[in-house]
């Protein structure tokens, strides 16, 4: 069997290149996490609301960037309000205004009634989402209970206010916007909520 066989090939160069591709693909998965956040902030992908800052705009008021009123009275947009209390938070919530017809550019204020149904103080955090996604970046919250964590005493009920403007730049095709809140329990270590919110 001692025929003229080619010397055993050295495959290691090709294998090394393939392993680099493999590592790059794995790293790409994790790189997608920040990339996705950037994309969402830029496009309103996924209902993230615009309020001049990145992320969910948790903590503090964005009072300094209230836009000059420039109301587009030529059309109306219906804004609908809804909210969900996530499992683990012994609260219930409902919007005191279910829907509202507004002109884009008008400053509006509504509130939610939130009640602690347990007999102990509980802290929660609301996370907003706007549908449809392409309206999200033009939905500007001037003041919102979702900017801060909220603590309710035993059995306490509170009206939580929200002031917002639907900017006149919002697409003319959009006639309905839904603002939805998910209220999460903060018990435990949900510290990441306040990331990037030092202003």
């Amino acid at each position, binding site marked *: 069997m001692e025929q003229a066989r080619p010397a055993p090939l050295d*495959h290691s160069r090709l294998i090394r290149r393939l392993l680099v591709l*493999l590592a790059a*693909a794995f790293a790409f*998965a994790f790189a997608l996490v920040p990339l996705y956040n950037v994309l969402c902030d830029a496009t309103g992908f996924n209902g993230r609301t615009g309020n001049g800052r990145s992320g969910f705009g948790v903590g503090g008021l964005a009072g300094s960037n209230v836009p000059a009123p420039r109301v587009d009275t030529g059309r109306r947009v219906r804004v609908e309000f809804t909210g969900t209390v996530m499992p683990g938070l012994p609260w219930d919530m409902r919007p005191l205004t279910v829907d509202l017809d507004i002109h884009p550019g008008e400053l509006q204020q509504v509130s939610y009634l939130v009640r602690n149904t347990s007999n102990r103080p509980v802290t929660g*955090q609301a996370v907003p989402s706007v549908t449809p996604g392409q309206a999200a970046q033009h939905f500007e919250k001037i003041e919102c209970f979702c900017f801060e964590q909220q603590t309710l005493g035993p059995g306490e009920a509170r009206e939580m206010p929200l002031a917002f403007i639907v900017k006149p730049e919002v697409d003319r095709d959009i006639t309905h916007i839904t603002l939805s809140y*998910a209220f999460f329990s903060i018990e435990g270590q949900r510290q990441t909520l306040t990331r990037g919110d030092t202003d």
Partner: protein
Amino acid sequence: MSIATTVHGEHPAEHYPGGLLRWLTTTNHKDIGTMYLLFSLVMFFVGGLMILLVRAELFQPGLQLMKPEFFNQLIGVHALVMIFAALMPAATGFANWMIPLMIGAPDMALPRLNNWGFWLLPPAATLLTLPFVLALFGVGDGAIATGWTFYAPLSVQGGLGVDFAILAVHILGISSIMGSINIIVTIFNMRAPGMTMMKLPLFAWGWLITAFLLIATLPVLAGAVTMLLTDRHFGTHFFDAAGGGDPILFQHLFWFFGHPEVYILLLPVWGLMPHVLATFSRKPTYGYTAQVYGFIAIGLLSVIVWAHHFFTVGMPVPALIYFMFSTMAISVPLAVLFFCWIATMWKGSMTFETPMLFAVGFIVLFGIAGLTGLVLADVAADAQYHHSYFVVAHFHYALFAGGIMGVMTGVYYWLPKWTGHMYSERLGKLHFWLTVVSFNLTFIPQFFLGLAGMPRRIPDYALQFAEFNAISTVGAFILGISQLLFAWNIWSCVRGGPKAEARAWEGAEGLEWELSSPPPHHSWETQPVVK
């Protein structure tokens, strides 16, 4: 790093340990290919049994046989088993057996890695199905119940079945990556002298694209399920909205892998089709170059279309339009393949042995998968069809008629080469007709159910869906039972039968048919020269 290459030259005679040890320690591509194929056949029946339980539950409206929790576990594990433990190992088994024979290589480039790649599969399959057994003994609440897609936040909240499935997917992924590296290195470095890339058999081309897709996208799935695991146990918030994460991100990560996965499953089948069609049409393959570029184009397009799997989550209109058009663009190279396959048969002296029947059946039924896929790619229509039985029927036309019937084509085509015996043509044809009729009986009603609005993954349904569901269940049981013919035919072919010649089919071309049937344990020790 230096990887040992084959040492077959040192073994003049067939010389290997016998019994179980042979299979545990083998580095021979034919032995490993056989193990992959047998494993795949076993898991095909395991996954099939699960879905027959599901169809039995869906035979009538109301809950008769099982709790919804168990139903949810069955559908998810059925999909994971069929995709990762039946279809992918079958394709890898084909690659192990046939690529070295087809390109004139003595073995795969990395034989020990090859052995390891296979032996990771049984533990992974065990991990996937073990939670069913554990639940019987009161440990945990059963297998993963999220469906095969692991969507967060359901998978973040799920029971221990999710952890088992995550680890199983990790192991299956490592196995597939090792197989892919091996196949790429084999194709690039071990071709016979004179076999340029544009003389490479189309089956090897199809697998080459699959292997690159696996290396580029499986790590993304591994990353996504790793994030899921850390979300579940280590306090991260990748997919937790309360912690500033985003559950939709999981869908992007999952489908960045999940859509190419469809082509990962199908490209090896598309690669073997031209061989079968050319053989039984007794004509050369039509449009070799066009098919190669078709494979490459589909491979590239497949990684930029993922979001069409979740049009309904709420995306900006420009994104919807982009994903719609890029998805529809895939039909162009795919149509090129279809026309090449049809043109290969055109005016040929066709005969319809079992592999050819399966190949023609594949073209017709996979065509339906493609056309219904175009409907789903339409953003406006998808709002109606999303998450309905229309989707279920569509992807079973793609993955059963396209994937599994394609694998059956290959099995019947190459079985004489592997075993040295001819299988029973009569049983084979019976198997084909039972399969194709009962398959359509199962899934055509599901198109109608989907159009009428029946959602998928729900164990109960409204009364108006009862007739079509009953028909579908009858079809599914005929389909399942007729696969026993397939297993029986393979078994009797391995045991004996008329002797197969080296060129088992009259019109077969290619290096693999130059070797005896079955080929010697060590083949192509002297590489052939391709002119």
